[in-house]
């Protein structure tokens, strides 16, 4: 009744359109400033690094081992160490992470235990990396006797990125439309056939993207590897997963910590190499995703 009468009477508005639009404009500029600040800071950092280190990036730099003399020092052992470590990190974390994601999305009963597990995986993604270093030292280096090897480092990093791999894989699997599963089951496919022929191929680009982004995180990790005893001065490249190793960020830290200006320059050069490796991996993720999605 009251609704009916109020609809009859003319409504009074305090319109003030200019004022309302002004707030919109102010908000726009605040947001733009936030974006600009982030971009400018990144640009300043990059320019500073490039000014210091660009001149030192050369084939010699990539091809030489560390040295007491900054002009002779190179990054070969750290670059190879990173490739070995990240490679094994991928080999370990891919099957574990994707397997766990498939179990949680497709098979796990929807009960409190599953929810507790999923919540904890999300929490693990936020655990400081040094904690994984302590774990790796206790379990892989000491208990399992892997020593300060590539394998121990890779296993530690694999644990570190596992939550990211699981969560991104779960999201990729969840993004497959339920109608596709129903169509598969509806024609007499078993759950595994539906998964194998329909769900996983569709989810694969997303899983791959998550995997590569997880490895991009692993490539920059320093603390856990120092914790498990990756060396800072290594004059050889690993030839087996049981060899001792160093990685790019540790080498960079080591150079940057020295007093001589020459080492600061090669630290900057090392950062450039690390950034290129990182951007290459991210670009790879984008290219693979686009190509695989086009095939569908």
């Amino acid at each position, binding site marked *: 009744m009251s609704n009916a009468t109020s609809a009859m009477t003319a409504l009074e508005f305090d319109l003030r359109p200019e004022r309302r639009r002004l707030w919109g404009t102010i908000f726009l500029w605040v947001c733009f400033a936030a974006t600009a600040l982030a971009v400018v800071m990144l640009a300043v950092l990059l320019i500073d690094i490039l000014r210091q280190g660009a001149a030192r990036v050369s084939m010699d730099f990539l091809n030489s081992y560390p040295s007491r003399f900054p002009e002779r020092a190179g990054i070969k052992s750290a670059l190879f160490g990173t490739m070995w470590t990240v490679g094994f990190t991928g080999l370990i974390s891919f099957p574990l992470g994707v397997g766990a994601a498939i179990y949680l999305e497709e098979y796990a*009963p*929807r009960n409190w235990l599953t929810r507790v597990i999923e919540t904890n995986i999300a929490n693990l993604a936020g655990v400081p990396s040094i904690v994984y270093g302590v774990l790796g030292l206790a379990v892989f280096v000491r208990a399992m006797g892997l020593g300060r090897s590539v394998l121990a480092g890779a296993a530690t990093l694999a644990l570190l990125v596992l939550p990211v791999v699981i969560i991104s894989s779960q999201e990729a699997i969840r993004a497959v*439309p339920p*109608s*596709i*599963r*129903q*169509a*598969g*089951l*509806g*024609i*007499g*496919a*078993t759950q595994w*056939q539906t998964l194998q*022929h*329909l769900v996983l191929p*569709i989810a694969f680009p997303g899983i791959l993207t998550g995997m590569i982004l997880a490895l991009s995180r692993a490539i920059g990790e320093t603390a856990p590897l120092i914790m498990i005893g990756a060396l800072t001065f290594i004059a050889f490249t690993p030839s087996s997963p049981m060899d001792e190793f160093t990685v790019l960020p540790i080498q960079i830290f080591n150079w940057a910590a020295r007093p001589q200006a020459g080492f600061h320059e090669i630290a900057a050069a090392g950062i450039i190499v690390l950034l290129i490796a990182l951007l290459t991996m991210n670009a790879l993720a984008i290219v693979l995703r686009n190509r695989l999605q086009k095939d*569908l």
Partner: protein
Amino acid sequence: MDKLDPLGFVEGEDPRHIMVHDDPVLETEKLSIYYASAKTIHEISMTIPRRKITALIGPSGSGKSTLLRAFNRMNDVIPIAWCEGNVLFNGEKLYAPEVDPVEVRRRIGMVFQKPNPFPKSVFDNVAFGLRINRYRGDIAERVEAALHRAALWEEVKDRLQDSALGLSGGQQQRLCIARALAVEPDVILMDEPASALDPIATGRIEDLMQEIKENYTIVIVTHNMQQAARTADYTAFMNLGRLIEYGETQKIFTNPEDERTEAYITGRFG
């Protein structure tokens, strides 16, 4: 106060005006379906005649789709769904413990509301059911036959290797019908197969249903009463999880015995 639904259905009342067929392909005996503790289908007993089109009509939430999905055990994939009573398929209990739902679904195929082709080629879509069921014969031959039967062959014969997602909505739905036909099921369940299609594509699906009913039993859920009247040999009217009236389509639409059926088909309700 008595438990009354909007149409005055008294709880526990026996459904009237229910037709029984000889030699039905599917039969339910006091079938009740629950989602967790909510009873969504109430003691439905009905028969689905062989090589005819049977339509399930009724307002939203009447349980048409739930009943349809009980016929090929698609409700099994919903963890909280469970049922009481029996469903007989060619006289045998569909929910007996030794029955494999995967085998049931090959023999009782399903076409869904929204066309859901796989993101694969046209050919691979139709071949999918043959491959996963390890068909021993010539797959290409069966694919062509299924596409012919689904009245799609002429339109896709030159683009069998193209992605099925490039087809129009109506073509995609006919592809889904071809996919279901390829494994030679006894029954095809259709859950509002034309609701996402334009009138022309809908007309082609309806024509197609008339052609394939010579070899297959079709059960169709539809919101579109004209569609039920045009296509179905028999029509069942459901409301609030109960079977209200079931009979020959012409009789249901011209001379319904139950006032609720009449109210629904004349558009006064639902």
